């Protein structure tokens, strides 16, 4: 057990940043759920605090804490322990294996899409503890992993492997192809490697063993590429957070440190090549007011907001950063009926803050954030890379 929790001086800065504490009167907040409760959890006593599962693992408490305590890690350990001792429940078990659901969903995409839209099935979902306030993401048969795996010719100096994760692969493969296209257009050789789920859904649903299994598999694949001179690129910030923060940490992946050091956010990578003078993209004007919702897991990586830096280079574009609110969906969190109330309240709060600035368009790096905030704002949404491509393609 790490002893950082002893550094907590109970200042409540973490509590001020906790989205769940804001809306749920039965959740004591990260200070009590984390460092305070850890003192009582030591030893062999079974944890009795079912409310630990109310934490959505947004990690805002970790970012806020000036004393180096990471309350979310302490809470996550308690969540895993609680699940191991009390069982996970059906919905959490299903979502932990999100990777397999995605495989099935994309293989039988028309059936899966009909099932998730069917009214009778929705009733069944609710009985199973799965929330239906939003439409489920659509599945696609022609996934990213089932399409052409190489882009850009062999002679190129920079070689990358693209870690797409589950969402881009099964639910937004066209966006994934557009991202690899962007990298290729910038003169980078891109490969889509064989990969499995990053492990976040399993970890978030209390299945550390399964999460570690995914991490081990990805770890050995990615380390192999890194050894051959590839960099690893992600776009999904929750996958990114797993690869850079959790593979060398709680998921203990083989070569975790190497993977963390050689893995880049797609925008971070483009910026790095620009600063090194290797590329010089010429951004054409886009006259738009853009709201940029920062995914919690981009915040928690501490790399700043690289997409914002790139987008500010586009003439005519006004960018408003929204990093004070969690969208509330938090991956599978909001898809569970027992957290639906929290998720919808937080979605409404985040949505209202965005609408107050009267944007033309909402962007976010995270597919789940986009889905949730589209639902609550009715704005059209985009990934930041789509906006970059739009600007680059506008050049005559």
């Amino acid at each position: 057990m790490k002893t950082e929790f002893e550094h907590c001086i109970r200042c409540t800065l973490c509590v001020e940043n906790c989205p769940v504490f804001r809306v749920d009167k039965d959740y004591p907040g990260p200070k009590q759920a984390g460092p305070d409760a850890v003192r009582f959890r030591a030893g062999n006593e079974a944890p009795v605090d079912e409310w630990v599962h109310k934490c959505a693992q947004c990690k805002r408490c970790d970012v806020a804490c000036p004393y180096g305590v990471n309350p979310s890690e302490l809470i996550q350990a308690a969540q895993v322990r609680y699940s191991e001792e009390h069982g996970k429940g059906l919905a959490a078990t299903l979502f932990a294996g999100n990777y397999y659901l995605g495989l099935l969903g994309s293989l039988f995409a028309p059936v899966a899409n009909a099932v998730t839209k069917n009214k009778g099935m929705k009733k069944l979902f609710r009985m199973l503890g799965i929330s239906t306030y939003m439409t489920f993401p659509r599945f696609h048969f022609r996934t990213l992993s089932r399409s052409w795996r190489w882009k850009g010719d062999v002679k190129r100096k920079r070689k990358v492997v693209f870690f797409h994760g589950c969402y881009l692969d099964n639910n937004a493969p066209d966006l994934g192809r557009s991202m690899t296209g962007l990298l290729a257009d910038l003169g980078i050789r891109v490969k889509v490697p064989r990969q499995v789920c990053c492990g976040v859904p399993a970890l978030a649903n209390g299945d550390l063993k399964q999460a570690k299994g995914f991490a081990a598999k990805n770890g050995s694949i990615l380390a192999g590429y890194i050894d051959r001179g590839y960099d690893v690129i992600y776009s999904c910030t929750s996958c990114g957070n797993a690869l850079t923060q959790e593979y060398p940490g709680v998921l203990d992946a083989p070569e975790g440190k190497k993977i963390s050091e050689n893995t880049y956010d797609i925008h971070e990578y483009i910026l790095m090549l620009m600063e090194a003078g290797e590329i010089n993209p010429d951004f054409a004007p886009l006259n738009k007011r853009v709201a940029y919702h920062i995914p919690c897991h981009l915040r928690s990586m501490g790399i700043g907001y690289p997409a914002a830096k790139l987008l500010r280079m586009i003439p005519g574009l006004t960018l408003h950063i929204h990093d004070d609110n969690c969208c509330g969906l938090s991956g599978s969190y909001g898809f569970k009926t027992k957290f639906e109330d929290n998720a919808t309240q937080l979605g409404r709060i985040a949505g209202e803050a965005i609408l107050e600035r009267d944007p033309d368009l909402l962007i976010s790096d995270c597919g789940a954030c986009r889905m949730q905030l589209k639902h609550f704002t009715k704005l059209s949404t985009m990934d930041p890379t789509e906006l970059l491509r739009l600007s680059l393609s506008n050049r005559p």
Partner: protein
Amino acid sequence: MKTENYDTVIVGGGISGLMAAIDLTRKGKRVAVVSKGDPVCCLSTGCIDILKGVDSPMESICDLPENHPYHLVGTGGIDRAAGLFLSVMEEAGLSYVGNTAQNRYILSPGGTRKQTALVPESMAHGDMEENETLNVITFKGMKDFFPGYVTAKFKNAEVYEFDPGIGSTLGIATKFDDPVFREAFVSWFKSQGISGGKIAMPAVLGTKPRVFGELARELDRKIFEIPTLPPSIPGLRMFKALKTCLQDSGVDLYWGRAVKSVEKDDDAIEAVTLAGMGRSTRIEGRSFILATGSFVSGGLYARQDGVVKESVFDLPAHVPGNRESWFGHNFFETGHGIEKAGIRVNKWFQPEDTGIPNLFVCGSILAFSETMKYGCGHGMAIATGVAAAEKCEEYLA
């Protein structure tokens, strides 16, 4: 390793560092702010104390000991900084009242009168006389506010309780953001038949700046907020206003990571590297501002052997005598010796005896500031933040 290049890198995301960043950004500089976490000002009342125990801060600054950092700023500089602060708050829709020439009072959660200078509009009516009639509205299940302390100090005081459905300051403030909840509250309020006098409530009237104004209009009474124990909503509102102002002007914020190492080229600081799980982020700057705060914020730390260290650049820190002389006998007395500890600077806010030309220091880390004794925490933060930024700008030019 990734490199970022800026005109000025500010280490410390508290009120002093953020004000310095705003000042430099408005002068067209490319600025980054690095902070290992959220600042202590989020826990504050949101009021700006400039100098306590006096009628006019501006007239009494000259009576401070001659090594007090306020003398480096001067009254003109303090006024400039306060003006910048007020304009930023105004733009964010978070109006303030008061000025630097005349102290005023707000009502504290202990029922006492707290002296301060710049006050959020929501506390403006908190300047209560003992014989005035006071109606306190409290919230069911709220653990961090004790109306009895307040009403005990007034002859004519009544307490009313509203049930908001959640007990935390943050939870109730979030509810007040919602117009539907506000409507329900207003109709409850009107049904209570509350007689004359002012209406006081704990500081939970919305997380957003404009909520208070709307509620005051809907209730059509003299209402005001009383600061609460942390989490403190007025402190949070102020911090968010400063942060949004910076983000709208394109300043890069690196949050949640501490500075791991510092690179120097001869005497000048060249770059700082941020600690992280994986690849380090190296941030290059032509100049640096240190605004990491004092002991509570971790800018300074004291060792058992009586040595005081500065956390980021390992600057020599002023130590007020041996360890025995650091503390008075009564915890709550002000003027403990240790309050004088900090970084001594020259008139350009550069750390003395270091020869570092491109580092400027501001905020409560400055030696001799004694912010508790003089009641000048936020005032010092703002004044020295802007003053250090002005010196930094001269250096860059």
